């Protein structure tokens, strides 16, 4: 059973449509949701959690239809971290513990405080005095302290310094050591996704460009630096993205559509996404 199964998901807003999105997150895996601002990442996550209603398609989370009555019970097994902490800022971590004790049936007080200690967060300080990194750590402690099977993270690492980001990404990696645990995270920081994700979903202007295994994705494409003359000789159907500069042309090609005639440059996930977004 997949942790998340989305088929033909559609949502219309004024000026934006999330257009027949389908993908599945296998259990035990980390999936990255990437796309430009307004591509539909947060909308997709809101739809997965049924925080907004869908116009079409189906969503199953941990085997449960997210519009069914049973989904509220399934939410007990889902940890959520959004781009901010979203708790009233006068609360202290101790207050948050007391509130969550009556929110999640599986709330583990000892686990929460051990994470608070691990993150070196003060227990009795209002978190309006916390830095952004500290606030996000508090949100992550809340998400992890009720024995979740699925973590859903919306831009949880944005605005954090590299040290904190690395620490948090390690935590997510540890979380998926249990083969029943899965993570879906959206991020602008493609290097973070490259570091930890097994699968990448790329959304562009509300459309699904691809959902692929990360390693396979990097194997499927090649980046060539060519002269203008060399570029003219490449079959157009193989080209997925082009970047022109005064010295020549950088071109992203689909390997299976073209002979391997030019030396390939190093291709990062970020390059790939940028080429595809601009070439799309």
């Amino acid at each position, binding site marked *: 059973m997949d942790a998340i199964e989305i088929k033909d998901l559609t949502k219309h807003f004024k000026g934006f449509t999330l257009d027949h999105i389908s993908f599945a997150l296998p259990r035990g895996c980390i999936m990255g949701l990437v796309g430009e601002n307004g591509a539909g990442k947060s909308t997709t996550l809101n739809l997965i959690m049924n*925080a*907004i209603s869908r116009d079409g398609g189906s969503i199953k989370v941990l085997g449960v239809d997210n519009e069914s009555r049973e989904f509220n019970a399934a*939410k007990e097994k889902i940890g959520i971290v*959004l781009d*901010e902490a*979203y*708790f*009233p800022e006068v609360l202290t971590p101790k207050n948050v513990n007391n*509130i969550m004790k009556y*929110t999640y049936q599986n709330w583990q007080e000892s686990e929460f405080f051990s994470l608070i200690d691990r993150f070196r967060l003060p227990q009795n300080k209002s978190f309006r005095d916390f830095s952004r990194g500290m606030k996000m750590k508090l949100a992550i402690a809340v998400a992890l302290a009720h024995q979740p099977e699925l973590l859903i993270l919306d831009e949880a690492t944005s605005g954090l310094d590299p040290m904190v980001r690395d620490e948090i990404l390690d935590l997510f990696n540890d979380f998926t050591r249990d083969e029943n645990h899965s993570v879906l995270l959206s991020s602008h920081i493609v290097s973070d996704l490259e570091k930890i994700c097994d699968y990448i979903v790329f959304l562009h202007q509300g459309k699904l460009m691809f959902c692929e295994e990360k390693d396979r994705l990097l194997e499927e494409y090649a980046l060539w630096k060519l002269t203008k003359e060399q570029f003219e000789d490449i079959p157009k159907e193989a080209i997925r993205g082009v970047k022109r500069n005064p010295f020549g042309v950088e071109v992203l090609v689909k390997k299976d559509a073209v002979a391997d005639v030019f030396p390939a440059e190093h291709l990062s996930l970020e390059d790939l996404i940028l080429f595809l977004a601009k070439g799309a």
Partner: protein
Amino acid sequence: MRGLLLKDIYTLVKQLRLFLLVIVIFACLPRLYSLSAFAIVYASMLPITAVAYDERSKWNRLATMMPYSVKSLVFSKYLLGYLMIGAAALISIAAQLVLTAVTGSAYDIAEVQELICVICIAIFLLSVNLPLMFRFGVEKGRLTFIILTVVTVMLLFSVKDTVLVWLAGADFGASVAFAALVAFAALSNLASFYLSLKFHKGKFA
């Protein structure tokens, strides 16, 4: 539900210590000054402040993803209002009992009836306010409430002579009027809750 109530109580206690103290002091004052009625009505406004703090922290975005039902998210604000009104009323009764014991005077049971009328008015105000807050947000909701109050008062003034004549001619006792007030407060809250539910769901459609 307990988690939601606890969150609101923590927030109110930390942000409004002075105002809560004012409510307690007013509730303790002798009925002579009618300030205990003010304390009870003021207590009915506290859920609006709680909604304002939720708005400021965007709490609802997170809460809709947690295992809270939409009904419990909405009802927790009504429950908070009932608890606050109830607490102010109990403090007031306790203070009056102490006062009568100290002064040696008898506790007038009519005061309890008077208190219940004030509670009904406070609950009615809650039922008008909360749907507006859920529909328009706190800032616009407060403005709409003020406009609604002004329009209602103007309308009442325009028909007051007719109503007074009708009331003078009507032959119902105080107990019927009292029961009607209680029923009106209860029904207005029921209707208000379903309206708030609809508005809250509409926001996340």
